[in-house]
């Protein structure tokens, strides 16, 4: 099912969903960045804004049109909606000489993610594999995921740090959405919309629309084709798994360790990073504890803390852990790559370390050697 929407029809999407008492979370401008937050009107979308990204740099600028999705991705990802940054799992209370446990089942409202980029759709699929695809199911994630409704938006404006074309995750979403929009700015401003699920089709049926003509689908293809061409291929994923595993002691890790601050920004901004700490927060009386699951990062020393100290004491070991996990060992663990090419780790790295450059440097010297 496929149709064409006028820009004003985006308001109908928000209205219909809010009438159903769903939360609508979408990109919106706050603190000079595009963040994901609940919106009450499509007017809160970042209309006429674009993001200019470079390693370690992110700026918003005005566009000379009224594009609703004329930017790439901001500092946040949908991870914060699905794998909550902090979730109370249990309350453990002292009871006589023993203790009692109250489980906190997550209760979430039906939530529409409005404006999910193809790389982010791919990231959600990766986290699905990790958190609900194995022997143990993360129920908190499952509850939030079951209650999510994905309105994807294909990309026409990749940022300089975007490399989804290299990772095979964009700029056009192939599946994993309820609805997908492509914003067409060429000619009359309009959106090609396609339903990916029955629920998506139901929503689409409620929207004011025009039938999609051949010219519309061609124009939409042109948008993502141009985006793909603009990005080019900047990371060769075909053999990266073996390349990194064959070069675990590569001297490039000493080099990157001189630049890396081990600040954890890349892991927090990453839409696939899933590591969490399970901590007990004690009440002042000492009679009760909240067991809280929080985002954690392999860049901290505490992450690998055991008796006798951390397993990864040096920054280079922690960077290597992160890099090989994203591009090699994630595949061994979960049968999928752990990187979707969104570029957040490059943009939000305070010193602008670029995963593509690091892989290229390892590849270059490896090839020189062989």
């Amino acid at each position, binding site marked *: 099912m496929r149709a064409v929407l006028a820009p004003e029809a985006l308001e109908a999407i928000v209205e219909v969903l809010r009438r159903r008492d769903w939360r609508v979370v979408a990109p919106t401008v706050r603190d000079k960045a595009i963040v994901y937050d609940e919106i009450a009107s499509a007017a809160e979308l970042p209309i006429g804004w674009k993001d200019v990204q470079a390693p370690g740099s992110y700026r918003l600028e005005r566009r000379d049109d009224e594009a609703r999705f004329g930017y790439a991705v901001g500092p946040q990802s949908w991870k914060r909606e699905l794998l909550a940054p902090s979730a109370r799992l249990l309350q*453990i209370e002292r009871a006589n000489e023993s203790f009692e446990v109250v489980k906190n089942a997550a209760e979430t409202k039906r939530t529409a993610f409005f404006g999910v980029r193809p790389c982010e759709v791919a990231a959600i699929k990766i986290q699905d594999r990790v958190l609900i695809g*194995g022997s143990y199911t993360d129920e908190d994630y499952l509850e939030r995921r079951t209650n999510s409704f994905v309105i994807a938006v294909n990309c026409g404006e990749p940022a300089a740090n975007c490399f989804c074309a290299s990772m095979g995750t964009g700029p056009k979403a192939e599946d994993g959405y309820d609805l997908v929009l492509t914003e067409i700015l060429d000619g009359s401003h309009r959106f090609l919309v396609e339903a990916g699920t029955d629920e998506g089709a139901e929503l689409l049926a409620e929207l004011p629309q025009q039938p999609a003509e051949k010219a519309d689908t061609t124009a939409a293809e042109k948008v993502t084709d141009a985006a793909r061409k603009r990005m080019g291929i900047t990371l060769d994923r075909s053999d990266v798994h073996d390349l990194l595993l064959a070069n*675990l002691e590569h001297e490039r890790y000493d080099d990157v360790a001189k630049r890396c601050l081990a600040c954890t920004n890349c892991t927090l901004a990453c839409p696939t990073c899933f590591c*969490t700490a399970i901590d*007990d927060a*004690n009440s002042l009386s*000492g009679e009760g504890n909240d067991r809280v699951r929080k985002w954690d990062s392999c860049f901290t020393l505490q992450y690998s803390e055991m*008796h006798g100290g951390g397993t990864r004491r040096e920054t280079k070991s922690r960077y*290597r852990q992160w890099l090989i996990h994203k591009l090699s*060992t994630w595949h061994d663990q979960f049968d999928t790559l752990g990187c979707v090419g969104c570029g957040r780790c490059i943009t939000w790295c305070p010193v602008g370390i670029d995963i593509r450059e690091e892989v290229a440097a390892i590849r270059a010297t490896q090839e020189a050697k062989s």
Partner: protein
Amino acid sequence: MAQTLTETAGSLEAMTPVPYAVTATRQDTYDTWTLELEPVNGAPIVPGPGQFNMLYAFGVGEVPISNAGNFETDERLVHTIRAVGAVTKALCAAEVGTVIGVRGPFGNTWPIEDAKGKDVVIVAGGIGLPPLRPAIYHVLKNRKDYGRFVLLYGARTPSDMVFLDEVKSWQSNYDVDLDLIVDAGDTDWKGKVGLVTKLIPPANFDADVAKGFIVGPEIMMKFVAQELMNRDLPAESIYVSMERTMRCGVGLCGHCQVGPTLICRDGAVYTWAEVEKLLAVKEL
């Protein structure tokens, strides 16, 4: 491959500590205690040999500790714990009657079924003996199912050895080739002195039909595995138990990964063939 128990479950149940009362405590060494545990309500869990539990000291935190119980004849959980951090210190300070939290069992088991009809060579270093104790009891209680049984136990000093009286009783009561060694003896020590690797060349087993189980510090497991391979025991027949920090125990928190593997999900028991290359890389 090590034996894997397949389970499908919700994480919240698996991450909820269950109250267990301490029914006995014993100080094993200057920094190591053994706790026996029984559930406050209901039936106890029955771990397989090689599996671990997450133990919870109320208000302090959780740590993964191997099961050391004799599950052939006894339902009590047994955990031997070295007091090295906040949680293990709190657990070691537990007295009879103290209630601690237990969740598990997690991880895979020693390949005791695959080892049937074969020689079994168990090499333990220091506090590495307790994680092997359930497998040892399984072999002892089903002695006729196995070939020769070699048990080599080394520690830094005699006072670092745990379960020593019990180990000696196995020698008197069962058909087991037991050998003990310490790095440094004391005035009462009349046994061998040196590294546990020294006991492997003379050990009585047939490498063509043997399985080796090793637990100890990583460096010890490395040299023991090497020594077993020098006796022509293939790396695929040598099993070790790996250790990393763990938060969830169910493959969701990411902490216990070593390269391609998550220890709580794929281990903690691995063949030496699976982990030799991983342990050769510093800080992997």
